[in-house]
């Protein structure tokens, strides 16, 4: 066991810290990060471009495709510092989802065409997996793609598509043949969102915001060169991605950052004249979460270390997803508890100045939208089924 940081590690920590503090626009972030508007998009893209310039945008990618070539410890340090300073993660759809599929299963032409624009954040991607009848049971999907000449003709409906309203491209699972086993006959297709016949319809969620969408495909022509790998093998690619991408899914750094905000608010808010953070019961609520988060941080590190050592991917991604979202939800619940009456105040249209601050409405939005965390990306129930199968062997 090697339990200490090296001198190089500590120097890297200083470098990351300095880069974040100099390059990240904390003021801008404060203004736009919560509004999910076009300003939000451009702020995100601007920051991602800075990371790209520094060579830090894709830590997990193989270096040949633009990865940063870090050790496990360096990745851990980068994430710790990101969480400490409250800097949001890069949008995952290009960098963590379709990118790895393309460099693993795509052909040379696809790699050259798509990977650079993912790294540079010039293309915004979204994910076309879920459908109204295919949620937890993703393999039931019905969106069809029929090969006619050199094009697939795509028809169907995707749902819960995050940030489709910003997206240039969508990667989709589509049904290309009707086999008996429903996992077969699914293909992995990249679709230009500007193609004729693609319609995006907003879904307003219970936080009152617009992050999700329906994406409708009406005779959308997709050139055959946008097919990843072989036709009918898409399920395999999607699943490999799911098991392989272990880092990030736990959102440890983001939870750390939320917890820090929560602590700061609890130090500022009072009850009966005393700061709430001094309340022994509130402290227990905080540390119930913080201790689990500290454990999860190392669970992630262990998963990375095992992968770096050539360990076989196991049920880690399901584990990290379950625990990560449970912790995020617990933080959002406690944050809502902290703001008390103010959490329910101001549904949407009014100046938060009425309350004298904006963190209360933000707490409500985070709590409400956060309910989705245990539903999306394979519900936590499904993730437990996966672990039961892979670990318990039942």
């Amino acid at each position: 066991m090697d339990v200490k940081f090296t001198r190089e590690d500590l120097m890297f920590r200083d470098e990351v810290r300095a880069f974040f503090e100099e390059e990240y626009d904390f003021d801008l972030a404060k203004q736009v990060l919560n509004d999910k508007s076009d300003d939000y998009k451009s702020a995100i893209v601007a920051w991602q471009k800075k990371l790209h310039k520094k060579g830090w945008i894709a830590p997990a990618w193989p270096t040949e495709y633009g990865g940063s070539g870090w050790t496990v410890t360096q990745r851990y340090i980068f994430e710790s510092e990101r969480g400490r300073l409250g800097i949001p993660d890069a949008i995952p759809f290009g960098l963590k989802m379709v990118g790895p599929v393309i460099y693993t299963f795509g052909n040379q032409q696809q790699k050259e065409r798509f990977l650079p624009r993912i790294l540079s954040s010039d293309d915004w991607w979204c994910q076309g997996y879920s459908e109204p009848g295919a949620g937890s049971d993703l393999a039931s999907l019905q969106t069809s793609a029929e090969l006619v000449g050199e094009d697939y003709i795509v028809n169907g409906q995707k749902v819960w598509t995050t940030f489709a309203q910003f997206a240039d491209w969508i990667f989709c699972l589509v049904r290309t043949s009707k086999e008996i086993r429903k996992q077969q006959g699914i293909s992995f297709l990249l679709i230009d969102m500007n193609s004729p016949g693609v319609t995006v319809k907003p879904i307003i969620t219970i936080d009152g915001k617009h992050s999700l969408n329906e994406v409708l495909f009406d005779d959308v022509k997709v050139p055959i060169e946008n097919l990843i790998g072989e036709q009918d093998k898409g399920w395999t690619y999607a699943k490999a991605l799911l098991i392989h991408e272990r880092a990030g899914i736990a959102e440890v750094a983001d939870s750390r950052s939320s917890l820090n905000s929560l602590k700061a608010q609890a130090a500022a808010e009072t009850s009966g004249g005393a700061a709430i953070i001094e309340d022994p019961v509130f402290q227990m609520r905080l540390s119930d979460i913080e201790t689990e988060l500290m454990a999860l941080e190392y669970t992630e590190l262990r998963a990375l270390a095992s992968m770096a050592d050539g360990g076989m991917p196991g049920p880690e991604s399901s584990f990290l997803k379950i625990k990560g979202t449970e912790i995020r939800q617990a933080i959002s619940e406690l944050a809502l508890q902290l703001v008390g009456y103010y959490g329910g105040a101001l549904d949407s249209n009014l100046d938060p100045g009425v309350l004298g601050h904006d963190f209360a409405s933000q707490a409500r939005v985070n709590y409400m939208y956060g309910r989705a965390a245990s539903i999306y990306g394979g519900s936590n129930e499904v993730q437990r089924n996966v672990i039961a199968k892979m670990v318990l062997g039942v």
Partner: protein
Amino acid sequence: MNFKLSEEQSMLKESVSRFIRERYDFDMRKEVMKLSEGYSRDCWATFAELGWLSIPFADEYGGLDGTIEDVAVVMEEMGRGIIVEPYIPTVVMFGQLLSLSRNELLKSEYIPKIIDGSCLGAFAFLERQARYEVTDIKTTGTLQGDHYRVNGEKAVVFNGGNADVIAITVRTGGQQCDRHGVTVLLVQSDTPGIETTSYQMMDGQMAANMVFKDVLIPHSNVLGTVDAGTELVEAVIPLVILASSAEALGVMTVLNELTVNYAKTRSQFGTPISSFQVLQHRMVDNFMAVEQSRSMLYRGLCTYADEEAYDQNERLRSLHAMKVVIAKSAKTVGEEAVQIHGGMGMTDDLNIGHYLKRLISITTLFGDADFHQKRFNELSYKT
């Protein structure tokens, strides 16, 4: 002991239930929420016609002389419809401050108007720094001749923007958090110097921020006794939390019904998701949570009502425990309803999220689970 509804209670229950079925389903509620005032004057008039506004008031003012159990029966049904009309602010908060105030002049002036639906009320008790401590009051009331000059700010005043009259707690003596030195005043909402910013809450209820600048309120508008307002407020809080707990019970009951029904119809992996044992057991736990909540409501009602059998300590313990159990149940039941509804539960178009939001508001009202549990502990655990 007997928990069967009386004939009168059954009629009240059915009357609210029919109203919701016929005039206040989820789509109609959406329309009501779009109205500029955030509630429906028509509906309110119907409430008056049907006698709901008169329940807890004395016979001599035209009331029904009903008990808090009767109010609870109505509130539970209103919870099933997540009605946004200001019943609690007007009838329970403002109305009961008035009823218990012994200010006969004000009572005979306003109670009949509450009952006939022509007067809406509100209770301005919350200040920015106060959280759940109702005695933490900075707003001052300075006696000048036969008027109080009131200065300060009240936040999240339920129904504050629509109210015709407002009861407000002001500090007439003592220090910021003292029990003594609090006075409850009644003030017309159009009195000069009141600046009101009205807004809609996440649960559809209206609230307001209210700034008081040199507002003059006649001494004759004192509710209760000067400097002893805390006692009056603390007499009304049990009624508010009993009524709102009953409402929470209605909300939770509907959520469980909707969730079980959804689970039976939603298919994944070729089978209704209700066939998954994990979901079954969680739905069972939610069922038990609601039954335990109902038990606590009944315990709260019984203990509150029976001053002969229970001392004050035990009566308060039951109320605090009720808030604790119901708040915990509400959290589980509400969140699980969203979870089991999956993506659908996340959409603003479906009713599930709106029930959850109302639950959160109710459990916050006059103190969340931790607040009441700590009060319970103070009354229960000593060396």
